[in-house]
């Protein structure tokens, strides 16, 4: 068998050494080693070796030949020597003063690119690059349950899992956790006699110890405080401590009333550790309390997320394998145990995971903008090179070396690149400040977005690299010019430079292609965003206002509670401007949990005995307030009480999926943990409870008078008046009913909806900005190239016109050229966009990557912009006065 090295790489190598007299022997040398290696380690290994060797050789040769270009006649030495540097600076500034507008434009163009990339860098860094603000964050892992579905209950774990993982797994230095549902109810903090609605999170007692966070003041929780019925303690977050207690250190050791119970304030968290921004982005966390890992809390089912600290040399996947073994043996010992499962991911990966596709897309987009910037700057510089060549030729004739000339041109690039860097920082500063201050955005670690040392360094480096990249080719081209030719051509009024024009047209096509890719990505995201906003939520968010009610009193019976809440809704409904009011345990896009359901009398699938459902506990009037239609049967009424038969409503998806076409009304189901059946009395319309992008799933509505499984209730009301106007009256009424209940904080469902689409809107806005910048830059590029070429061809055009060509035909030829360039750019852009559609695929909603509407409209926009930018030069060309031009000859 004759072994031959990979053909394509042989050709690549042959091409690379084609000008080298020793080239053929190099091919032979590699071939020889290839044959030997193939004999020793097989053809495949030898092929791999050959490919690598060729690539290394080719790259090395390219690098050294570039270096050699620079070092010809001591160029490199001159480039790096400090001698004459001041003079270069001075003469650069002199050149720039002669054309201040042009250099300002260059700085602005670079600044645009730097601003875009720096803003993205500052967003990406805390999420993907910078370590989390805890001790040795790389060793921290996120442990969640393995259930299916979108609800929190399927990915959280029972506290007994934490207890057993701690005892049995050896991969961890420590495992801790927090109560995932803590943000679904508020806590009333009494300070100085006034109730305040606050947001706390329950954590395992060793939470801060495992994370390696030292309190700023005071101490962490003790083991006793972490026990069921142990001493009650709270740790304040830094922000809350400053806002509510004015940063008073004397607060440590004092007692506050939280939900009617005395708690000792044991410490204050450091400002660097913002619990909310890491674990519950977009939400507010005022304090931490302990969540006991005990039999009592275990009965509540899946409630906790775990965080583990790995021992040195243990990886997340090894830890996961160990937990699987632990789970296996636990299941063997306790076959009836449910809710066991563990998936382990590095904590930082977990936090960034929801945003990773968006961040990747933004990084790619900012790189694309930077690419256009480089093309544009190179283009502008190339446009000037004929003029510069004359100046350079004169300097050469006066004795300047090639090295000195290249250096001076590069110094010039450096100056406007650095200026561009500054402009970029000026652009990035307000953008990042806006982002960091944006509350209500569900984006983790937003508070850590700043323009700091690394970001500044990044901005300057980006600007300078762009300037050098864009400046090198024109500098080499200018310096290459042969003095005698250039001077002669200059005296004649050069008309040539055809090669230069070709390069610049190619650059414009490249710019248009990249701009086209950005526009398509932006267009697809825009269409997705529209689709998300256009989703029928199943309820009417406009005109609703909601409060979370935390009555200070405890109820002894269902009756007492329903009577109290009926009074609340009656009083509120009686206020002017209120159309209707209702109560629910958790309004849409807020609370989220799941229960199991089984139909009485139906065959039970042994594989899947329970169907998952979202439970809702509502008052009569809630469905009407939300605008949720009754499709069949009846609504819940005030006559459904604890003493009457237990009834529920099911949504359309439930009716369809659980009853498969049979009539659900009148059937009975088991759910909610009890043995008593619930009769379905009505079918209601589907609502998207978790947000527009999540399917409704099975939902069941219980009368709150019959199902008391909630820690708080949301009051939702519908009004034609503006929310702020309604709020004052409702707050006053509520405060009258219960002076110890916090009543000031309210929200609208529209604002909740807004938050669920915040990440999408954010990506869209940034990408839209990039697309716009790309469009402006591309337009600038077209305009520049065509005006230059019209100016260069003035003589030719003049002659053509004097021979009878009409103005309109001249215009047509210039605009035709523009459209040709635009067409080429768009064609390439569309191809690239389709090839790269993987980057946006996961972010599309209701639209395909090859969406003809998006592709068509973006192409139209680009063609329109191109035609506009080409029109001015075309007009100028058609006004060429043949006599003037020829007389100037």
């Amino acid at each position, binding site marked *: 068998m*004759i072994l*031959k*090295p990979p053909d394509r790489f042989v050709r690549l190598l042959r091409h690379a050494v084609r000008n*080298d007299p*020793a080239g*053929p*022997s*190099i*091919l*032979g*040398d*590699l*071939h*020889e*080693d290839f*044959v030997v290696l193939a004999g020793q380690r097989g053809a495949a290994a030898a092929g791999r070796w050959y490919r690598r*060797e060729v690539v*290394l*050789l080719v790259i*090395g*040769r390219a690098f*050294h030949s570039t270096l050699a270009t620079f070092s010809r006649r001591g160029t490199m030495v001159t480039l790096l020597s400090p001698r004459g540097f001041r003079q270069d600076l001075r003469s650069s500034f002199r050149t720039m003063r002669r054309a201040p507008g042009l250099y300002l434009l260059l700085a602005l163009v670079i600044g645009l690119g730097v601003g875009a990339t720096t803003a993205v860098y500052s967003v990406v860094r805390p999420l993907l690059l910078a370590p989390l603000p805890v001790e040795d964050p790389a060793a921290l892992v996120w442990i969640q349950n393995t259930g299916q579905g979108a609800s929190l209950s399927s990915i959280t774990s029972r506290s007994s899992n934490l207890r057993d993982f701690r005892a049995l797994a050896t991969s961890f230095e420590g495992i801790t956790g927090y109560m995932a549902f803590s943000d679904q109810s508020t806590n009333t903090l009494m300070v100085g006699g006034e109730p305040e609605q606050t947001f706390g999170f329950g954590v395992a007692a060793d939470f801060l110890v495992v994370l390696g966070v030292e309190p700023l003041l005071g101490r962490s929780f003790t083991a006793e405080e972490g026990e069921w019925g142990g001493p009650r303690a709270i740790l304040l977050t830094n922000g809350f401590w400053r806002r509510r207690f004015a940063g008073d250190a004397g607060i440590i050791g004092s007692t506050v009333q939280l939900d009617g119970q005395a708690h000792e304030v044991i410490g204050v968290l450091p400002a660097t550790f913002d619990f909310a921004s890491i674990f519950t982005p977009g939400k507010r966390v005022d304090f931490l309390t302990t969540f006991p890992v005990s039999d009592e809390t275990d009965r509540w089912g899946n409630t906790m997320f775990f965080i583990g600290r790995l021992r040195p040399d243990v990886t997340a996947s090894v830890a996961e394998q160990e937990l699987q073994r632990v789970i296996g043996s636990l299941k063997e010992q306790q076959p009836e145990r449910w809710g066991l499962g563990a998936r382990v991911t590095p904590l930082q990966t977990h936090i960034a995971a929801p945003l990773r596709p968006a961040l990747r897309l933004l990084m790619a987009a900012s790189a694309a903008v930077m690419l256009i910037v480089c093309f544009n700057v190179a283009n502008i510089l190339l446009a000037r090179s004929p003029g510069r060549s004359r100046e350079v030729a004169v300097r050469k004739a006066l004795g300047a070396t090639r090295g000195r000339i290249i250096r001076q041109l590069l110094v010039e690039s450096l100056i406007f690149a650095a200026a561009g860097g500054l402009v970029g920082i000026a652009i990035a500063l307000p953008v990042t400040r806006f982002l960091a201050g944006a509350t209500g955005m569900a984006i983790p670690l937003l508070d850590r977005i700043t323009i700091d040392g690394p970001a500044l360094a990044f901005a300057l480096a980006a600007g300078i690299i762009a300037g050098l990249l864009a400046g090198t080719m024109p500098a080499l081209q200018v310096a290459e010019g042969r003095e005698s030719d250039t001077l002669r051509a200059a005296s004649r009024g050069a008309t040539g430079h055809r090669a230069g024009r070709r390069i610049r047209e190619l650059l414009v096509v490249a710019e248009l292609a990249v701009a086209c890719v950005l526009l398509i990505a932006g267009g697809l995201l825009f269409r997705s965003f529209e689709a998300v906003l256009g989703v029928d939520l199943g309820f009417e968010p406009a005109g609703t206002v909601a409060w979370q009610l935390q009555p200070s009193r405890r109820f002894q019976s269902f009756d007492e509670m329903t009577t109290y809440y009926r009074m609340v809704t009656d009083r509120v409904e009686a206020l002017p401007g209120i159309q209707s009011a209702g109560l629910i345990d958790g309004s849409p896009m807020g609370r989220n949990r799941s229960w199991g359901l089984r139909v009485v009398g139906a065959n039970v699938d042994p594989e899947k005995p329970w169907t998952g459902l979202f439970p809702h506990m509502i008052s009569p009037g809630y469905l009407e307030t939300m605008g949720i239609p009754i499709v069949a049967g009846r609504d819940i009424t005030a006559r459904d009480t604890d003493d009457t038969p237990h009834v529920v409503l099911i949504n359309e998806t439930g009716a369809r999926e659980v009853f498969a076409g049979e009539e659900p009304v009148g059937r009975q189901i088991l759910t909610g943990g009890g043995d008593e059946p619930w009769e379905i009395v009505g079918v209601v319309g589907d609502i998207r409870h978790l947000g527009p992008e999540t399917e409704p799933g099975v939902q069941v509505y219980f009368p709150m008078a019959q199902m008391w499984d909630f820690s708080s209730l949301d009051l939702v009301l519908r009004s034609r008046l503006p929310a702020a106007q309604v709020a004052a009256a409702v707050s006053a009424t509520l405060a009258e009913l219960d002076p110890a209940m916090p009543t000031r904080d309210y929200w609208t469902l529209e604002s909740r909806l807004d938050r669920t689409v915040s990440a999408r809107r954010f990506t869209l806005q940034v990408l839209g900005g990039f697309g716009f910048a790309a469009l402006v830059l591309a337009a600038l590029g077209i305009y520049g190239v065509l005006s230059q070429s019209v100016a260069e061809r003035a003589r030719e055009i003049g002659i053509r016109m004097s021979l009878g060509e009409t103005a309109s035909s001249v215009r047509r030829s210039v605009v035709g050229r523009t459209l040709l360039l635009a067409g080429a750019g768009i064609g390439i852009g569309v191809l690239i966009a389709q090839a790269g559609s993987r980057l946006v695929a996961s972010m599309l909603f209701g639209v395909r990557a090859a969406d003809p509407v998006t592709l068509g409209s973006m192409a139209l926009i680009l063609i329109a912009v191109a035609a506009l930018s080409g029109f001015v030069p075309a007009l100028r060309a058609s006004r060429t006065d043949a006599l003037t031009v020829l007389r100037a000859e």
Partner: protein
Amino acid sequence: MGDGNRLGEFEMLVLLAILRQKDEAYANRIREDLEANAERTVTRGALYRTLDRLAAKGLVEWDMEPSETPERGGHPMRRLWVTEEGLEAVRHSRDVLLTFLDGLGRVLGPR
């Protein structure tokens, strides 16, 4: 001799390797010798560049020798030899090295 022909360490080693192989020197064999006996990794690119540089300085010369063997895929072989100037440069480097090593036996210890 002028500054232009002062040898770098790697250049010196390459020249010596060519001399060791008498009339049989070519790139692959030089590389093998250096990797095996000078205990250094030699990248192909660096070796070719050094050979070209030595040739440009007039310290080595070479000839393209046709080869029909399947081992080389029919590609020719570059035979190298050291010129008189090359030998002079090696001698000079050796003398400098020996001058500086002279009297350091106690410090450096036995080989």
